[in-house]
C-alpha cells in the first residue's frame, strides 16, 4: 500500500492535467450512460407510475378493440359482478387552458362515482372549510355534466378553489377551462381530491369526472374505454383471468393493467435500445482513455519499473500497481460521473420526452430520483471496464525485466510483433463484423447489428498502429514540406511515438467514426423522409386537434368543425382519417382508415410492393383488404397476398394484404383500410384528423386564415398548410435526432480531451528533447508551432481513419440496425456539407487541443531541462 502511495498516487497527484483529463473522460462516459438510462426510465416510469396510480386496486381489465367496449356488449357482462367489483372507465387526455397562451396536459378519468370507490381511493374536499363534501356537492358532481374534481396539488399550483357547496362566493377561481378534442369548455370545480390514490398520478395533473359527463365531454357516447375489475378474491387472479377470458364474447379481452405498461415498454424498446447503445460509445471512448493513460504511464516509467523489479518487487505487485492506478482513476471518474449524469439526464429527458410523446404517445415524467441501483450500476460498469482497459498495459508493465533499470532509457523493443498481432486482431474483428451484420434481430432488437458496429470500432482501434506506421512511411520527409521545419520535426516526433499515440488516435477515430456514421444515417434518413413527405403529403390543408397529432390520439374532430370546413366555398374535398391503437400479435400497432379513392386520385402513398401499387389499392376498395406499412411488414413478416387477422370489435377478422407502402410516421406498424371497410367493421367513428383538398386556384394560406378566424373562437384546432406541415415534419424529425447529436458531441469532447492528454504526456516526456531544440536555436514560436502541428496531424489522421470506419458503420446502421429496429427503408445519402463542416470543426478542435501543451512546452526553461543530463 505504501508502494502504491509512493509509486502511483504521487504521480497521479503530480500530473494533475493528465489525471484530470482521464477522470473527466470516464466521468463523461459514465454520466452519459447514466443520463440515458435515467431518461429512458423516466419515459417508461412516467407511464408506469401513472398507470399504477390510476389503476388503483384493479386486478383485471376488460378491453375492446381500439375503440374500447361497446355499451351494448357491456350490458351483457353483468356476470362479471360475481368475480368482484366492476367499474367501467373513460380515460382520456385533455388540455387545461390556464390562460390564453398557457396550457397543461391533464389526464381525465371518468368513472361511475357510485361504484368506483372499492377500486380507487378518493378523498374529496370541498371549498369553504367543509372537510366532507355535502350532498349538494356530491349530487352536483353526479348530475351536472360540467362538473370536475381536480387535485389539491393542481389547484394550489394554479390558484384554483372548489366551488362552495352553499352557493356562497368562492375565494378564488372555481372554474377550469378544459379542451377535449377541438372543443374547449368551462367546467365547475366541485371538489378537490386529496393527494392520494389516483390524484398522485402525473404530478397532480389529474381530473376526476363522473362517467356520464366524461363520456359526453370526450364524445365517446355509446362506449367506455375499458372496464376495471377488482377481484373479491385477489389470490384467484390466474383462475379469474382464464375464466373471464373464456366467457367474454369475441372482440373483448381481459388483461392485467400492467399489460398496457409492458406494451408501451415494447413499443419504446427499439428506440430506447438504440439510445442506450449510443450512450455506451461515450463510455467506450472514456475507456480508451484509461487504456491510454495507463499505457503512457507504463511506457514513460519503464526504467522505474525496472528498478522496482531489480529491487525484488514481484510481477504481481507491478501488475497490481497499474491496475490500482486504473481503478483509482475510474473510481474518481465514476464518483464525478454520477452527479453529472443526473444533471445530463434533465437535458436528455427534455430531448427524449418530446420524441416519446410525439411518436409513441407515452408520457414522459420528470427525471426519476437517482437510486442506489443507478449509482451501483455506474460504479459496477465503470470500474471493471476500466480494469479491463488497463489490463493490457499493466500486464506489459509486469513483464518489464529488471535489466531495464540497468540499461536505462525507454526502449520499444518487441513492438513489431505486437503490432502484427494487433493488426491480425483488427482484421479478424472486421471479418466478424461483416458476418454479424448478416444475422437477424434477437427479440426484435438489433443485437447482432450492434455487435457488428462494435466489432468495426474494435477493428478500427486495432488497426490504428498499423495505419499510423504505414502513414509515417508514406509521408516521411517531403510530403509535409509545406509545414516547414516544424512540420518535419512534428512528423519525426510523432513517428517515434506511434505506439503511445495509437490509443489516442484510435479513441478520436472511433468517436469520429460514430459521428460520421450517425451523420450519414440521419442525413440519409432525412433525405428519405423529405422525398416521402413530398410524395405523401398532397392535401392542401391538414386539420387536427393538436399541433402535433400523434397517431394514438383519441381526440376527435367534432361534427360542427367538420361541417364548417366542408362548407367553405374553396373546399373541394375532405378526407377523414381515423386512427386507433390496436393489439396485433401482442404488439400495439396503429389501425387507420382513409378514403382509398381520394388516395388514388392524389397519389398520396408510395408503394414498396406490389409493382402496381395503385392498382392494388383500387382492388382493396369494397372488400376486407388492407395496405400495411413497411415496418409492419418487416416486423411481423407480412407480405402482399397474405391474409392476416386484424382485430375488430367483433373479434379478429382475416384481411387480405393488398400492398405494402413506405411510412416513416411511426415504427409501430400501420394497417390502413378503406373508410367504407372501416365503417363496416368499426361503425361510424369521428375522425381524428382531416385532409382538405381545395379548389384549384385557391390560396391555402388565405383559406387557412379564414377558417382559423371563423373557427378558432369556438374550437380548439390546428390547421397546417401543406408547406407548414412539411416543415413541421422535418422539425419533429430534427428534434428526434437532436439527442443523438448531443451524445456524439459528448463522445467527441471526450476524445479531444484524450488527444490533449496524450500530447501533454508526450511533451512532459520530451522535456529534454525540447530543451535541446531550444538550445540549438529553436525559438518559442517554432516550438509552439511544432506542437500545434503535431496535434493537427493527429486530428487529420484520426479524421481519415474515422471517416473510413464511419462509412462502414453507417452502412450497418442504415441497412442492419435501422431495418431491424424500426423497419424503415432508408436511401443512402451522403450529407457532404455536414461532414465537411464536422471535419473542419474537429481539425480546428484538435489543433486547439495542442495549444495548451504547446504553451506548456514553450514554458520550459532549457537550462533546467538539460541540467539533468
Amino acid at each position, binding site marked *: 500500500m505504501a508502494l502504491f502511495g509512493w509509486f502511483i498516487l504521487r504521480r497521479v497527484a503530480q500530473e494533475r492535467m493528465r489525471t484530470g483529463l482521464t477522470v473527466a473522460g470516464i466521468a463523461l462516459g459514465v454520466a452519459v450512460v447514466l443520463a440515458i438510462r435515467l431518461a429512458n426510465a423516466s419515459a417508461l416510469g412516467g407511464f408506469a407510475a401513472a398507470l399504477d396510480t390510476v389503476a388503483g386496486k384493479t386486478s383485471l381489465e376488460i378491453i375492446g378493440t381500439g375503440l374500447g367496449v361497446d355499451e351494448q356488449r357491456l350490458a351483457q357482462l353483468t356476470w362479471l359482478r360475481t368475480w368482484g367489483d366492476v367499474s367501467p372507465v373513460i380515460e382520456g387526455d385533455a388540455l387545461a387552458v390556464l390562460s390564453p397562451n398557457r396550457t397543461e396536459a391533464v389526464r381525465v378519468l371518468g368513472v361511475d362515482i357510485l361504484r368506483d370507490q372499492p377500486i380507487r381511493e378518493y378523498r374529496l374536499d370541498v371549498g369553504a372549510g367543509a372537510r366532507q*363534501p355535502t350532498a*349538494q356537492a356530491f*349530487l352536483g358532481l353526479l*348530475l351536472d355534466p360540467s362538473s370536475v374534481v381536480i387535485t389539491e396539488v393542481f389547484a394550489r399550483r394554479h390558484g384554483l378553489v372548489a366551488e362552495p357547496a352553499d352557493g356562497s362566493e368562492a375565494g378564488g377561481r372555481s372554474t377550469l377551462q378544459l379542451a377535449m378534442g377541438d372543443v374547449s369548455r368551462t367546467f365547475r370545480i366541485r371538489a378537490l381530491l386529496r393527494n392520494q390514490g389516483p390524484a398522485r398520478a402525473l404530478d397532480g395533473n389529474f381530473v376526476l369526472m363522473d362517467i356520464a359527463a366524461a363520456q359526453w365531454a370526450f364524445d365517446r357516447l355509446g362506449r367506455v374505454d375499458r372496464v376495471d375489475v377488482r377481484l373479491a378474491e385477489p389470490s384467484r387472479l390466474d383462475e379469474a383471468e382464464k375464466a373471464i377470458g373464456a366467457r367474454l364474447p369475441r372482440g373483448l379481452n381481459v388483461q392485467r393493467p400492467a399489460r398496457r405498461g409492458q406494451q408501451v415498454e415494447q413499443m419504446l424498446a427499439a428506440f430506447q435500445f438504440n439510445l442506450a447503445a449510443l450512450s455506451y460509445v461515450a463510455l467506450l471512448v472514456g475507456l480508451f482513455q484509461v487504456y491510454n493513460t495507463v499505457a503512457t504511464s507504463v511506457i514513460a516509467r519503464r526504467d522505474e519499473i525496472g528498478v522496482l523489479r531489480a529491487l525484488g518487487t514481484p510481477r504481481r505487485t507491478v501488475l497490481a500497481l497499474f491496475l490500482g492506478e486504473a481503478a483509482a482513476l475510474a473510481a474518481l471518474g465514476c464518483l464525478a460521473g454520477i452527479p453529472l449524469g443526473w444533471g445530463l439526464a434533465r437535458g436528455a429527458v427534455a430531448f427524449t420526452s418530446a420524441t416519446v410523446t410525439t411518436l409513441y404517445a407515452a408520457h414522459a415524467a420528470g427525471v426519476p430520483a437517482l437510486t442506489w441501483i443507478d449509482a451501483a450500476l455506474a460504479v459496477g460498469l465503470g470500474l471493471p471496464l476500466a480494469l479491463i482497459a488497463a489490463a493490457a498495459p499493466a500486464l506489459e508493465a509486469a513483464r518489464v525485466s529488471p535489466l531495464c533499470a540497468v540499461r536505462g532509457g525507454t526502449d520499444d523493443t518487441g513492438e513489431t510483433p505486437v503490432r502484427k498481432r494487433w493488426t491480425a486482431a483488427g482484421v479478424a474483428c472486421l471479418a466478424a463484423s461483416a458476418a454479424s451484420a448478416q444475422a437477424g434481430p434477437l427479440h426484435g432488437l438489433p443485437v447482432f447489428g450492434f455487435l457488428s458496429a462494435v466489432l468495426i470500432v474494435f477493428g478500427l482501434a486495432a488497426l490504428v498502429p498499423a495505419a499510423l506506421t504505414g502513414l509515417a512511411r508514406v509521408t516521411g520527409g517531403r510530403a509535409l514540406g509545406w509545414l516547414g521545419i516544424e512540420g518535419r520535426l512534428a512528423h519525426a516526433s510523432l513517428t517515434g511515438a506511434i505506439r503511445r499515440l495509437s490509443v489516442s488516435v484510435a479513441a478520436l477515430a472511433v468517436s469520429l467514426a460514430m459521428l460520421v456514421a450517425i451523420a450519414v444515417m440521419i442525413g440519409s434518413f432525412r433525405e428519405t423522409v423529405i422525398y416521402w413527405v413530398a410524395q405523401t403529403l398532397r392535401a392542401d390543408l391538414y386539420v387536427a386537434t393538436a399541433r402535433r397529432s400523434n397517431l394514438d390520439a383519441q381526440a376527435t374532430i367534432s361534427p360542427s368543425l367538420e361541417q364548417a370546413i366542408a362548407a367553405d366555398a374553396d373546399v373541394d374535398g375532405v378526407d377523414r382519417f381515423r386512427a386507433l391503437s390496436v393489439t396485433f400479435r401482442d404488439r400495439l400497432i396503429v389501425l387507420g382508415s382513409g378514403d382509398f379513392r381520394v388516395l388514388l386520385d392524389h397519389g398520396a402513398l408510395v408503394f414498396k410492393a406490389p409493382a402496381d401499387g395503385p392498382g392494388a389499392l383500387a382492388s382493396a376498395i369494397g372488400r376486407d383488404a388492407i395496405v400495411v406499412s413497411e415496418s409492419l411488414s418487416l416486423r411481423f413478416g407480412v407480405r402482399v397476398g397474405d391474409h392476416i387477422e386484424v382485430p375488430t370489435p367483433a373479434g379478429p377478422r382475416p384481411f387480405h394484404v393488398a400492398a405494402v407502402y413506405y411510412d416513416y410516421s411511426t415504427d409501430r406498424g400501420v394497417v390502413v383500410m378503406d373508410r367504407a371497410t372501416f365503417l363496416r367493421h368499426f361503425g361510424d367513428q369521428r375522425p381524428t384528423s382531416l385532409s382538405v383538398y381545395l379548389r384549384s386556384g385557391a390560396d391555402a394560406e388565405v383559406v387557412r386564415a379564414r377558417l382559423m378566424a371563423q373557427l378558432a373562437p369556438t374550437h380548439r384546432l390546428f390547421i397546417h398548410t401543406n408547406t407548414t406541415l412539411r416543415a413541421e415534419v422535418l422539425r419533429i424529425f430534427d428534434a428526434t435526432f437532436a439527442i443523438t447529436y448531443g451524445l456524439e458531441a459528448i463522445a467527441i469532447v471526450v476524445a479531444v480531451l484524450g488527444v490533449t492528454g496524450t500530447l501533454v504526456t508526450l511533451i512532459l516526456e520530451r522535456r529534454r528533447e525540447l530543451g535541446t531544440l531550444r538550445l540549438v536555436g529553436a525559438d518559442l514560436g517554432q516550438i509552439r508551432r511544432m506542437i500545434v502541428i503535431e496535434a493537427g496531424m493527429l486530428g487529420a489522421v484520426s479524421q481519415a481513419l474515422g471517416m473510413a470506419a464511419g462509412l462502414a458503420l453507417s452502412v450497418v446502421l442504415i441497412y442492419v440496425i435501422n431495418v431491424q429496429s424500426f423497419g424503415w427503408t432508408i436511401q443512402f445519402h451522403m450529407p457532404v456539407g455536414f461532414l465537411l463542416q464536422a471535419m473542419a470543426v474537429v481539425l480546428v478542435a484538435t489543433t486547439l487541443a495542442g495549444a495548451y501543451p504547446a504553451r506548456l512546452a514553450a514554458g520550459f526553461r532549457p537550462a533546467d531541462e538539460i541540467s539533468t543530463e
Partner: protein
Amino acid sequence: MTMRRALVLVLLLAASPVLAALASDPWKQASRDYAVRLPADHVSHPAYRIEWWYYTGNLETDRGRRFGYQITFFRIGIDPSPANPSKWSVRDLLMAHIAVTDAAGGRHLFAERVSRAGVGWAGASQRDLHVWNEDWEVRLEFGRHRLQARDPRFAIDLVASEDRRPVLHGQDGFSQKGSSVGNATHYYSLTRMPTEGFVTLDGERFAVKGDSWMDHEFGTSFLESNQQGWDWFSIQLADGADLMMFQLRRADGSLDPQSSGTLVRPGQPNRRLVANDFALTPGRIWTSPVSGARYPVEWRVSVPDQGLDLRVRPVVDAQELTGARSGVSYWEGAIEVEGMRAGQPLTGRGYLEMTGYSGRALGELLNPPPSATPRKAP
C-alpha cells in the same frame, strides 16, 4: 309503510338545491284518483320520484335455527330528463340493501349497493315485477316471487308465494303521510307470503322455511319539514292476524297525527288504524357502536279496541344498517312478539324499522370517514 326507508334519502335529496328546482315539477304526485291494481302495479312507476320494493321475513331450518332476512330495492328519481345524452346519466339512483339476521350466531350481516341504471346493470322493469341491482334481484317467476342476492359473506335465495290477497293501505292504496295535499304514497303489502329456499352464511347453506312480508310503495313527495323519523312495525301473529303500523316522530318529540296502520284478520275486512287507535311505547335502549344512535329496541304495542297488548323484542340487538356508501343509518330487524289478545296469550314474529335516530348526510356516499367503515360483521 315502507316510506320510512327512503325517507332519509328523500329528506337529504329534498334539501338539496340542485333538486329543489326539479323536485316537484317533473314528477307525478300521488293522488286519490289512482286505484292500485294488482298484479299490474307490481312494476316500476318511473313517473313518481320515490319507489321501493321491500321484502322482510322470518325463516327457520328444519332443526329450528332461526333467521331473519331483508332484501330491499329503492328507486329514487333524480332527474327525469337529463340533458346529457349519455346512458350513464343519472335519471334514478338505484339502491339496494340486503341483510340476514342469525339468531343462533347473535349477528346481523348486511350489504348495500348504490347504482345508476347505466347500461342496465341495475333497474326496475315497467313490464313485470323485476327489480335488480347487478346480481341482486327480485322477479316474478311462475307466479312466485324469486329473491336472490349474494355478498361475499352471505347469500339469500328464496321463493315467496302470494298466499293472501294484497292489502291496500289507506284508501285503495292511497296512504296519506303528511298533512299537506300530495304528501302521500301509493302503498300495498303482501303481508304473509309462505317462503322457502336457502340462506347461506360463511359458505354454509341452510334450507329454510317461513313467512315473508312484502311492501311496494311509490310517490313523489310526502314529507313535512318537521318530520324527524318513524317507527314502523310489521307483525304476523300466530292467530293468523297481520298488523302494520307506523308512527311519525316530529323534531320536537311529538307524534304526527298522520301515523296509521292496518290490521288484517282472516275472514274479516281489513281494519284501518289511525293515530288514536294504537299506542307504541318505547322501552329498552340499545346504542349503536357504529353510528352512536340510541334505538329503543323493545316496545310495547297496544291496540285497545282490539284487545291487543303486545311486547316486542329484537332477535338480536345489533340490527342496524349503516350504509358505507349511502351513509344512511337505520335499524331494521327481526322481532319476536309476545302478548295477549283479549286475555289470551299470543305470540308472533315480524320486523321493526326505526329511522331518524342518527342522520348521516348522503354526501358521504362517496366518502365514508375512516372511523366509520363498519367492515366487520356486527
